[in-house]
């Protein structure tokens, strides 16, 4: 089983992101589960959301304490929260930043795990025209981890949004995917 924690601020789409990832994993033929932090959600306040992906039915329903992956929509949250608390030793962090992996580590924004930086904000602004970060960063997640197929993410987005909105989001998602993929290869 793979466990993923999303960090974001209310309004950035962490909860929807966790849902889209779970939906895409289902479309990959896997079992999945997503859930928000249980509490009142306020715009701007730090929020977490969670996704589990497995090859067999998922029964566990407690919180995630030792994630395999952490997805960070807003790196400023690191000022108040340890973003990688409990992260598995071989875990990875996909973080929205215009900076490099080295800098992110140097500045102690992320203190452990393999770091995949992605400038999701710029991509979102350029392609979608607004700072919608969840779909963009999922493109990077797909490229970095291979836990979910890009095609399935496309489908999940198409299922959720209108045609026009889905097209823009998927274009931005693909761009992020290619950026990370290009860097990896």
């Amino acid at each position: 089983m793979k466990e993923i924690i999303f960090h974001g601020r209310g309004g950035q789409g962490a909860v929807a992101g966790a849902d889209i990832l779970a939906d895409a994993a289902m479309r990959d033929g896997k079992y999945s589960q997503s859930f928000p932090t249980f509490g009142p959600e306020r715009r701007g306040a730090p929020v977490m959301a969670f996704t589990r992906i497995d090859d067999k039915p998922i029964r566990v329903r407690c919180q995630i304490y030792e994630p395999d992956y952490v997805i960070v929509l807003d790196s400023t949250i690191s000022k108040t929260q340890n973003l990688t608390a409990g992260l598995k030793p071989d875990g990875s962090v996909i973080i929205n930043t215009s900076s490099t992996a080295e800098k992110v580590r140097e500045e102690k924004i992320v203190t452990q795990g393999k770091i995949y930086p992605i400038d999701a904000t710029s991509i979102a602004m350029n392609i979608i025209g607004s700072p919608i970060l969840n779909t963009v960063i999922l493109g990077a997640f797909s490229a970095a981890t291979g836990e979910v197929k890009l095609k399935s993410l496309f489908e999940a987005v198409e299922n959720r949004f209108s045609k026009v909105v889905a097209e823009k989001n998927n274009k931005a998602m693909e761009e992020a995917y290619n950026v990370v993929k290009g860097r990896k290869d």
Partner: protein
Amino acid sequence: MNTRKLMSGNRAIAEAVKLSEVNVVSAYPITPQTSIVEYLSEFIARGELAAEFVQAESEFGAMSACIGASSVGARVFTATCSQGLALMHELNYVAAGLRLPIVMAVTNRQLSQPLGMWCDHSDAMGERDSGWMQIYVESCQEAFDTVIQAFKLAETKEVLLPIMVCLDGFILSHTSEPVEIPEQKEIRDFLPAYKPDADYHTLLDVKKPLAAGGGCPPAFTMEFDYKKYEAQEKGRELLRKIDEEFGDAFGRRYGLVEAYKCDDADAILVAMGTIVGTAKDVADKLRSEKGWRVGVLKLRSYRPFPKEEVLKAAFGSKAVAVVSRAISYGLGAPVFSDVATAMSNVPEKPVLLNFIAGMGGRDVDKKGLAAVFEKTIKAAETGKIENEVEWVGLNKNLVGG
């Protein structure tokens, strides 16, 4: 063709209500139930569900409206939790006494005070003895399937009691996972339209006038109480049967309980709702890592209480731990009392352990459940318990204990 969709527990409930083709939904918003009635309102607005929605002025009004609608022959659904369910309390007894087959989803939530909107089972426990049946579900799929089963069971002539489908607030109501949704026709074949009989049901029909809900002198009241008792007893058998029929039609069966690896178990953990799934994972881990023979017994049907199934699962085990998400102040925990009652006339019974966990949304994690198993295995070995009531995850630094 089934469709497989990712959806939350609340969405699964709403989809099932839609496919049950209810006539009336009456409810009042409360967290975390709200999205159920929002989805249903959307279905109605889009013309996907031909039902009347009455957003009452309170949960009290909602249950009253449900009773009114059911008493003229409508198939009726409502949903609530916590303070809302407590506010309905008076009318819950009326609905059961009038023998109206209303189905209600309860997104289990704590009761104030302290104020909070997180999961525990205090709310539904308060309605335990109202005559309503209570079924606790573990997954979004089970939530969907149970609503369909519940309408069928409630409307069965030998039962005619309202049913609560209980799902853990947030932990299930707001968790999304893949759910198989059958076609409308398949559901309709399994659950035909509700057709009350004016000579038997509480049915207000100007062509066959009756007076319903009036007074009854002491000389007859106990007989009607007995009728409700009998309906729950028969309902136990009928839920088994309906669950089988459902399995034949849709390929999924749940039983009144699920006995997970209980056959050879020395120690069994009994729980309801979402704790069960986590406990199964923990049991598997303990079996493979420590070689402990542990099992999990999920209580799905809580009222009627699955006495035979509990005894069968516990037979041969040495210790049984009941993990309750509710408290009976001054005694212990309601579910423990129920399990103990089921075993009261068994000559050689296992040691019983009473655990309180997950109150007010306290996460019931793997570590906590592993500790429960450890204590239970120890009790299985020694035949003794350390404490009469154990609080899982309690911050003892703050309160002692």
